[in-house]
């Protein structure tokens, strides 16, 4: 048995985790290789600007994946996340040199004691602006 959080101890609105994650160009290259998504807008400034972007942007799927890592650590078991969805509302430009700082705040959105699940709502922002919309992870707890 894991010693993860218990459903009975949670209340809607409660913040359960928070983390700031830095993303630089090297991280995007790493994600491209790991995921197989080699779209050049995520690593090539020339291509990114030629299609009207401000510059290289992070893969939306990188941001989605980085945000849920916070939930996995809180839940104590990667297998506990039974559903995870998001909308991509704003691109995350990644400077060079430097890094973009992605802030992730996880809070209890809803509790379902019958199913034994909690919906964790993620607020994911860069410089105060939300980059993911309706980012929700459903987590099964003991």
């Amino acid at each position, binding site marked *: 048995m894991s010693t993860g959080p218990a459903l009975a101890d949670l209340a809607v609105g409660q913040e359960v985790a928070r983390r700031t994650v830095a993303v630089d160009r090297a991280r995007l290259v790493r994600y491209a290789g*790991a995921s197989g998504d080699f779209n050049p807008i995520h690593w090539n400034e020339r291509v990114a600007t030629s299609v009207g972007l401000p510059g290289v942007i992070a893969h939306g799927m990188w941001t989605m*994946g980085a945000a849920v890592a916070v939930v996995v650590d809180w839940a104590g078991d990667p297998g506990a996340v*039974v*559903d995870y*969805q998001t909308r991509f509302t704003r691109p995350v430009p990644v400077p060079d040199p430097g890094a973009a700082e992605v802030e992730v705040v996880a809070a209890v959105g809803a509790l379902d004691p019958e199913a034994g699940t909690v919906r964790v709502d993620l607020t994911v922002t860069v410089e105060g602006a939300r980059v993911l919309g309706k980012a929700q992870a459903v987590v099964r707890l003991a």
Partner: protein
Amino acid sequence: MAVDTTFAGRVYPPGDVYVVSREKIREFAEATGGTHPAHTDAAAARALGHPDVVAPPTFAVVIAQRTEAQYVDDPAAGIDFSRVVHADERFTHHRPLHAGDRVVTTLHVDAVTLRGGLAMVTTRCELADESGAPVATVVSTLAVRPEEDA
């Protein structure tokens, strides 16, 4: 070339089996900042009741995007990636994905709709094991901007 709406409803049968490996899970977890030991340490995963290391919740995108390529990379579909924005994504896990899993994936083109010049393309990948037992469902929507905006 415009996005072809007649692709809606198409189903692409499974191709090659995707074998989930410990190293691919490690690579993906490291790239996304997934530091939970159950992603990389088989003993830690077994202590949680899993048969081997557990994939991060979005790992299935590796399999889904390969599968979606059958459709989105087909020139006849009319999807120009320089005009594509990822609109939304959803993973439903019917059970955790582990190293050693042998996954077969069926691709469904659920919808291709035109909305004020934008083409919205929704695909659904159904991941299953070789006996057909469901593993995960991955739904993805792309928005394709019209050519004149490019």
